[in-house]
C-alpha cells in the first residue's frame, strides 16, 4: 500500500473524500433508509403517508404478488444456469486456446455492450416477431402453425435475459480460467489423467472462483430485471421488477412498492449470503490454498 507517511496531513483524506462521501450518503444510503421507513407507512397519495409500523405492507406484498416473486427467482435460476452452460465452453476455449487473439475474441463477445440495452432488447422483439425474421419464413414454409408465437412467452423473456447477461458470465469465467497455469494440466496428463478427468479434477475446481463470481453477477440483476419482460413478455411473464415499477409509478401505492423492493433486496441478500456460505467462500478458500 502506498499510504503516505508524514504527519500533519491527517485531514487530507477526509477533505478529498468528503464530496463523494456526502453524495453517496445523501443519494444512496439515506434513500434506502427512507425506503425502509416508507415501507412501514400507511395512508394514500392524496392525503399523505404516516409512519405506523405498517407491517401489513409486507404481508400484502407477498399475498398479492408472490407469483411474480417466485417467477422472478425461477427465471433467474434458469437464466443463470443457461448462461453458465453456454459461457463455460467459450471461456474455456478462449482462455486455453485463444492464443494471440484472446483480446479479439473477448472484444467480440462484449460487442453487445456497445449497443443500448433497450435497443438490443427491442431488436430481439423485432427478430422474434410473429411475422419476423425467424418465425415468418418458418410459417411461410408451413413448418409452424400460423398462430404460433414466441413474444409474450417465458421462452422469449428467458431468451432475452440470457442474451443480455451472458457476457457478464463469460468475463469472470475467462479471468479464472486464464489464470490457471497450463503446466498443471500437463502435469495431470503426465500422471496419466485422461482429458476428462484432468478437466474434472484440475481445471474445473480451479475455475470455481470464476463460477462463483459469474453466478452472483448474473443472478442478482436478472432477478430484478424488468426491461426484458417489459419488452419481450406479456401478462403471463410479469416479473417482480415490473410490478414494483407499476405500483410506484402508476398506482402510487408507495408503501406497498417500497415493501416489495425491500423484500426483493432482502431475498437477494439472504440468497447471496447463504450461497457464499454454502459454496463460495469455503470452497474458494480451499482451492486457493491448494
Amino acid at each position, binding site marked *: 500500500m502506498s499510504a503516505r507517511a508524514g504527519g500533519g496531513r491527517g485531514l487530507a483524506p477526509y477533505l478529498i473524500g468528503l464530496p463523494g462521501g456526502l*453524495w453517496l450518503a445523501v443519494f444512496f444510503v439515506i434513500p434506502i433508509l427512507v425506503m425502509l421507513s416508507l415501507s412501514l407507512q400507511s395512508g394514500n397519495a392524496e392525503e399523505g403517508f404516516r409512519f405506523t409500523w405498517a407491517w401489513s405492507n409486507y404481508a400484502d406484498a407477498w399475498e398479492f404478488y408472490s407469483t411474480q416473486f417466485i417467477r422472478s427467482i425461477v427465471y433467474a435460476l434458469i437464466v443463470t444456469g443457461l448462461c453458465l452452460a453456454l459461457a463455460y465452453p467459450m471461456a474455456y476455449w478462449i482462455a486455453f486456446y485463444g492464443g494471440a487473439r484472446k483480446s479479439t475474441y473477448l472484444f467480440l463477445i462484449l460487442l453487445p455492450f456497445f449497443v443500448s440495452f433497450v435497443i438490443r432488447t427491442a431488436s430481439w422483439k423485432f427478430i422474434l416477431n410473429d411475422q419476423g425474421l425467424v418465425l415468418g419464413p418458418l410459417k411461410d414454409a408451413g413448418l409452424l402453425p400460423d398462430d404460433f408465437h414466441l413474444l409474450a412467452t417465458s421462452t422469449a423473456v428467458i431468451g432475452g435475459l440470457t442474451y443480455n447477461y451472458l457476457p457478464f458470465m463469460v468475463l469472470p469465467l475467462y479471468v479464472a480460467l486464464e489464470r490457471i497455469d497450463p503446466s498443471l494440466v500437463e502435469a495431470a496428463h503426465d500422471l496419466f489423467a485422461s482429458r476428462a478427468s484432468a478437466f474434472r479434477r484440475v481445471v474445473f475446481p480451479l475455475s470455481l472462483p470464476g463460477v462463483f463470481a459469474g453466478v452472483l453477477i448474473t443472478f442478482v440483476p436478472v432477478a430484478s430485471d424488468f426491461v426484458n419482460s417489459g419488452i419481450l413478455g406479456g401478462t403471463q411473464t410479469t416479473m417482480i421488477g415490473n410490478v414494483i415499477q407499476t405500483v410506484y409509478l402508476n398506482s402510487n401505492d408507495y408503501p406497498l412498492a417500497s415493501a416489495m423492493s425491500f423484500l426483493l433486496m432482502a431475498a437477494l441478500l439472504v440468497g447471496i449470503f447463504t450461497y457464499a456460505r454454502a459454496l463460495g467462500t469455503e470452497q474458494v478458500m480451499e482451492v486457493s490454498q491448494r
Partner: protein
Amino acid sequence: MTAIATREAPPEVAPAPAVPGRRRWTRRILPAYTWLMICYFSLPILVMIVFGFNDTTGKLNLRWQGFTLNWYRNLFDNPGLTAALRNSLLIALISTVLSTIIGTMIGLALGRYRFRGKNVYDLVIFSAISAPELVLGASLLSLFITVQFQRGFVTIVVAHVAFSLAFVAVTVRARVLGLDPTLEEAAQDLGADHWTTFRKITLPLLAPGIVAGALLAFALSIDDYVVTSFVNGQVETFPIWVYGATRVGVPPQVNVMGTLIFLGGVAIAVGNAVLARRQRA
C-alpha cells in the same frame, strides 16, 4: 475495455498428445461453438444496423423494403426522439463531469491514505456497485417522494452521478495503487511543492485511470433505463423514449442513432487498445 487489451496471451497450450482422436474438441468443436456464439451476440446488432437502411414507408419498420439512406438524411425528423437524445447526451455529459471529479477524489483518498472510516467508504462503494439498479431507482424515488422534490432533469443527473461515482472511484483507486511513489518524492526533492507535484506528476500519471472512469460513467449514463425510469418525472431520455416506442413500433431513426452510438463506442475502444499497445511497444 482496458482489461481486455492489457493481457497478452501466453504461448498456446499444446493439446495433450496422449489421445490424438480427441483433439477435434479443441480444434473443431469448441472454436466452431465460440464463433457461433459470437454470431449470436452480433445478430441483434446486425439487425439494428441493417434496418436503419430499410426503405419502409409507414411508421413500422418490420419487413425489408429496399435500401435507402433516407433515415440518415432525416435523422432528426422525429422531434420527440431528437429531444430525448439531446437530453441523454446533456445528462451524460453533466453527470460524467460531476462523477469524474468527485469519484477521482474518493479514489485518491482511498488509494493513498489510511484513515478512520475507510472501511465504511469501501463498504458503501461496494454496495453501490453491486446493488440491483431497481433498488437504486426505487430508493431514490422514495426519497424524492418523501421530501417532495420535483422529479425531472435534476433528479436524473443526481441519480446518474450516484451510480457512476462508485465505478469512477474504484477505477481511479486501482490506478493510484499502481503508482510509483518515488516519482512524486523525486519531484519534491527537486523543490516542487505539494500542489505542483500533484499537477505536474500525479495527475498526468493518473490520467489513464481518470479517462477510463469518465468513459465508463458516460457509457453507464447514456445507456441507463432502469434507474432513470424511476426518477425522470416527465423528462424523456433516449432509452426511455425507445422503451416507450417498443409498444407502438420503433421508427428507423432509432436504428440509425443506435448504429452511430455503437460505431462511436467501438471507435473509442479500438483507439484506446491501439494506443495502449503503442505505448507499451
